[in-house]
């Protein structure tokens, strides 16, 4: 369903992705883990075409996102939901209006006002946010914004969902709820998903496979059990939560891209 074919990306002199390869099958949930600043969000942005690779390409549902523009790109994007790391709710609209936005702006399908209201309420209830519908994003907590953003993503019933740190800023029980939600959405609609997270319980719970990102590519890919028992020192350091040396030192040792 999603095929990332050897993409490389650099911002000026800074190389972020180097020949990254990844295939996610239809209905599969793939978890990407990795240190902060390693390029996880950049990878997701390539999948929706917000960034374009310097070389290589990304194929979603048989179409190359990296070469698509205009109407073709819009069509591909209409099947993809992206939960942004910072929620990215529009701050002058209420939570309800934010969730309604992708429905109202859908050019291929005109929906009635009542139908939109119904969907908004349904999706907000799914993330336990129905009572906050008329509040502004500035009036709710960070975790609530995350959940509202998730409702906005789910509103269009996407076949592919990209979750960028869906549980960051949530308490453990709410995190578990979101984990369940991700699994149940996957089961009900057969969605294909990429989940970027540092939250190990979530990764083990929702991931069919987990990939550890390092030096611009996926260092190790495996089932949750394989990753848990991995002998790779870098994977071990990560899941055992060993503190980093200084960033400069790790760069010198070749553990980080300069």
């Amino acid at each position, binding site marked *: 369903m999603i095929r990332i074919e050897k993409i490389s990306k650099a911002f000026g002199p800074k190389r972020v992705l180097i020949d990254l390869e990844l295939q996610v099958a239809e209905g599969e949930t793939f978890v990407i883990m990795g240190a902060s600043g390693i390029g996880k969000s950049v990878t997701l942005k390539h999948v929706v075409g*917000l960034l374009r690779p310097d070389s290589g390409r990304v194929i979603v549902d048989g179409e190359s996102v990296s070469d698509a523009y205009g109407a073709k790109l819009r069509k591909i*994007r209409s099947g993809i939901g992206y939960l*942004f790391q910072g929620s990215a709710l*529009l701050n002058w609209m209420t939570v309800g209006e934010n969730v309604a936005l992708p429905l109202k702006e859908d050019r291929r399908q005109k929906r009635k006002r009542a139908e939109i209201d119904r969907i908004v309420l349904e999706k907000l209830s799914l993330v336990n946010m129905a009572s906050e519908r008329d509040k502004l994003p500035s009036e709710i907590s960070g975790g609530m914004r995350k959940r509202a953003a998730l409702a906005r993503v789910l509103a269009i019933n996407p076949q592919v969902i990209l979750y960028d740190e869906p549980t960051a800023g949530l308490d453990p029980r709410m995190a578990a709820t979101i984990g369940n939600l991700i699994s149940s959405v996957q089961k009900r609609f057969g969605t294909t998903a990429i989940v970027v997270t540092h939250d190990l319980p979530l990764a083990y719970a929702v991931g069919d496979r987990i990939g550890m990102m390092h030096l611009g590519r996926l260092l190790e890919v495996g089932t949750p059990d394989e990753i848990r028992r991995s002998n790779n020192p870098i994977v071990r350091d990560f899941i055992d939560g060993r503190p980093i040396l200084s960033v400069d030192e790790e760069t010198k040792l070749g553990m980080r891209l300069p």
Partner: protein
Amino acid sequence: MDLIRFTGHFLRQSVRGSGFTVRLFLSTLARFPRAVLRLRALLDQMYVCGIKPLPVVVVVSIFTGIILAYQTGLELDRFGQREKIADIIGIVLCREMGPFIVGIILTASVGAAMAAERGTMKVSEELDAIECMSIDPLDFLVMPRILALGLMCPVLTFLGDIVGIIGGGFISEQQLQIPWTLYVRQVIESLTTPAESTGLPKDLWCGLLKALVFGLTIATIGCSTGLRATGGALGVGFTLIIIFGYYLTWFFYP
């Protein structure tokens, strides 16, 4: 050596920035007819651009009228021409000062806010989110702002003109002993020397046209600065307004 490089870099950035701004304006212009679909956003923006800065515009205009009347009046009095005060105030305010005052106030308040707001949206991924939902950001964000400011700038200018004339009249009555009725009649007379083509008072509509251009310019530069998320371009916008103002006057009063 560094100075040369810096200058070169600065010039290249400026040219590139201007290109972006002009293209942004033209693409947005093509989207104006779609404003009917964005009526709510447009009304919201008209409130932000037109109602919020209103108190400042009123206060500044009234004092401009007062100062103008006071300073000019004293000089005119020395030549025994004090009745001319009404003509001067009417013409100067409507033709030049009105649009200029409103332009500067709007640059500093609304224009700067637009730039800052777009800038934060870029950082907080909101622009990415809009793009992901396949919403045209020009249609959704830029068009209502440019259109609203373009509409509201002349309206504010018109109000500012009237308030300024009233301020001037107040001083004329108090200091120069010109009765209100005479003052008002003179202002109206000076402004109703119609242009042959339109029948409207030329000084007034030239001023309002200028305000329209100012409004469109301020909003375009505000939005383009924000979208590129580079600081400093507002200063350029400010300069542009003064240059535009000069050329417009020159064009209509050769």
